[in-house]
């Protein structure tokens, strides 16, 4: 069996194991039913909950739209983590890079009056550039001083979020008549078109063409890795920096370039949220996406296709979780538990091996993230 299939099998098994454990949690926390000794009731809650999870993620066009809406920023931010990781860098700074891209995209979105055919790409470009510049900082710090990117990207997340809060209150960004940190709306010409525009004016279909941007970005990531000298250099450096240096690669500038590329992906994530979903920016525009992206990249083993699939899975869980909460009393927080369990089982390959009695080694499965990049 080839490595890809093998790792895919383990990933699937981890998801299954997480669903089983979550099922236990749903049953044992159904206090009312259990208190009455009504196990049938508890199991029917479980059934309703998982049915809701499915219905809310893939059960209708609206559900699919919600899944896509959730997956879009996760995919772009996931690429930011995956691409840096391919170059041996552990990018915890997707949040900060998203915020940088959100702000630059937002500014181009409201500061200019242009036809959409120019305005949309220009605003997206601005978001990518904003993220790239912000992402390059920890790369440059590591290349020049050896400062570890894990520390610097975490610090820069803090810097970014407070800078954004401050910016949103300046005259330039502030929305007329509001005192809190919330921005002006972008021009309609800068808004990303809805993905299901052909369905007429259904305002419940939130999915936007940021998803197409994310798919293109995934393709670009694949192309970079497989078809370019830069991707070859990034990967060689990521696997073995000494050998890359021996081969004449400029490993220090590669650190900066790799982080800039990662930042550009995250910047697009921020930009697509502002230009596609909200139409404005607030301090919480990045939310927890930058951190969830680490789990997305981990689950996707940092490959383009893996990141895509795991972003869709996480998007689906998010969308389905809301439906589950509506249909049953199971809170959406269970989704956080479920995601944590998936990551847990991915990180504990031997456990999954033991549970499912998989023969052979867990090769191609464990150690998705080797150490701390270093």
């Amino acid at each position, binding site marked *: 069996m080839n490595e890809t299939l093998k790792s895919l099998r383990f990933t699937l098994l981890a998801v299954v194991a997480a669903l089983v454990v979550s099922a236990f949690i749903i049953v044992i926390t159904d206090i009312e039913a259990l208190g009455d000794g009504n196990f049938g009731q508890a199991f029917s809650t479980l059934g309703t909950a998982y049915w809701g999870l499915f219905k809310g993620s893939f059960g209708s066009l609206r559900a699919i739209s919600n899944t896509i809406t959730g997956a879009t920023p996760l995919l772009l931010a996931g690429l930011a983590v995956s691409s840096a990781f391919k170059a041996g860098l552990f990018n915890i700074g997707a949040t900060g890079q998203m915020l940088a891209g959100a702000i630059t995209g937002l500014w181009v979105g409201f500061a200019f009056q242009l036809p959409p055919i120019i305005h949309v790409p220009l605003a997206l470009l601005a978001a990518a550039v904003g993220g790239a510049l912000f992402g390059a900082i920890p790369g440059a710090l590591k290349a020049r001083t050896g400062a570890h990117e894990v520390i610097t990207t975490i610090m820069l997340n803090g810097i970014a979020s407070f800078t954004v809060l401050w910016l949103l209150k300046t005259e330039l960004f502030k929305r007329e008549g509001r005192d809190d940190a919330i921005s002006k709306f972008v021009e309609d010409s800068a808004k990303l078109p809805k993905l299901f525009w052909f369905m007429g004016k259904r305002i419940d279909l939130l999915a936007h063409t940021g998803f197409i941007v994310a798919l293109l970005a995934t393709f670009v990531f694949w192309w970079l890795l497989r078809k370019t000298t830069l991707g*070859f250099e990034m990967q060689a450096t990521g696997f073995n920096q*000494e050998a890359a240096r021996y*081969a*004449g*690669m400029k490993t220090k500038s590669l650190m900066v370039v790799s982080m800039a590329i990662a930042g550009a992906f995250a910047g697009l994530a921020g930009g697509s949220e502002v230009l596609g979903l909200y139409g404005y920016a607030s301090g919480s525009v990045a939310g927890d996406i930058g951190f969830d992206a680490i789990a997305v990249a981990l689950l996707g083993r940092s490959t383009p296709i893996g990141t895509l699939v795991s972003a869709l899975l996480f998007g689906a869980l998010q969308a389905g979780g809301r439906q589950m909460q509506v249909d049953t009393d199971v809170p959406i927080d269970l989704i956080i538990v479920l995601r944590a369990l998936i990551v847990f089982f991915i990180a504990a390959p031997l456990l999954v091996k033991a549970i499912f009695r998989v023969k052979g080694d867990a090769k191609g499965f464990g150690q998705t993230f080797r150490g701390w990049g270093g």
Partner: protein
Amino acid sequence: MKFELRGITKRFPGVVANDNVNLEVSTGEVLALIGENGAGKSTLMNVLYGIYRPDEGELRIDGTPQHFSSPADAIAAGIGMVHQHFMLVPVMTVAENVVLGVEPTGRLGSLDIDEARRMVKEVSDKYSLELNPDAVIEDLPVGVRQRVEIVKVLMRDAKIVVFDEPTAVLTPSEILEFFEIVRSLVAAGRGVIFITHKLKEALTIADRINVLRRGKVVGEANPKNTTESEIAEMMVGRAVQLVVDKKPATPGAAMLQVKNLSVVEPDGRTVVDDVSFEVRVGEIVGIAGVQGNGQTELVEALSGMRRAASGSISVADRDVSHDSPRERHAAGMAHIPEDRQRQGLVTEMSITENLVLTRYHDAEFSQGIRMKWDVAAARAKELVAAYDIRTNDPSQPASTLSGGNQQKVIVARELSRDIRLAVAAQPTRGIDVGSIEYVHSQIVKERDAGVAVLVVSTELDEIMSLSDRVLVMYRGRIVADLDPKKVSHMDIGLYMAGSRPAAVAS
């Protein structure tokens, strides 16, 4: 006690690592198990030590079948193993390490360190191992650490002691001491299995030699009436040239000129000290020396991996002292690095990718930023065939290759392009006989094609047989410039140790 392996077969997906292997060893004798890297020696040892279970066959002690499901079972049955990589806690003392896991305890379970010291002393004296129980491991040389491992095994009362490539980490004099220890073990009625790929050592110490090739025992030899080349032939499966076959050199103009080169460590130590030499077109210059006398740093300075503190390096009369590694590649310098896993290869990447690692930016393999992977794959196919790299599929990761084949990947990559100077550091370290022969012949071929070659090696045999001229490095300086045909191993050994043979002293 007689320990037997009967019909041991162990399969892994896609390979039969051990194929119906029979061998036996009794107390009071030394059995050498010899084979190339990848012949199945390590798998066999893991089977007899209880780490792997054989798919077929059984282990017997004095005729009774044994079922080892863990090393603990093997230890209990009287099998001890001294691993190639020591398992010692560096910050603890010899006594503490030896009793780790089987600590003698006093009242309330407190560690009775005096008892531990006494036990170490007793075993050490019995086999004249000369160990100080209170010495801290990290202060001890490698040869002494190995003796600590031996004591660990003896304390657990092993009747059969297995040594896995024990001499790989030892200096020549430590190897002689090690042989003495093996002899005293045998004299005390223990049996020894000695795993190695070094022919000379097997012939020196073993009572019997078993040769393993592709998972099978292909022959048994008696060291008293066998020669090195006979065993080498059994190992490789064909006649092997153990001596480098080359014509006299016809050196031309100077290609590499090194003048007053010094390299200083960040802590201020001078590791290469005012070194000057030249390598001419069509000659092989060997640099001999005990590991750690500045050879590594010299090569790093030559290849551009490290800045020299002073002095100059020129290739074909062009000063390359301040050039980057890539500029030096472009100037016609090939570099076979001393550590193939750390520098020479990205083992996680495919063989094809590794074959273009230093050349991917050439117009042949890329255009702008677009890689021409189809061209690279075609080229890899050619190189795999031309340089005899044993693989079915160059798109497999380089880590799937044996050490010798990994080295051939580097040799193919570095020597197949248009070069004028080749710097080869430890070109045959840790690779099998067949591959050594091949790498040497390629180096000689380059010399005959008019390339200047610098070989750095700590293997004196290699330097002596390959070089047209030998430089000896000691404490960062070049202390001798010798003709290998006119100087003995012994004299070079003296230079390497920092003294000067009486006959040539001036």
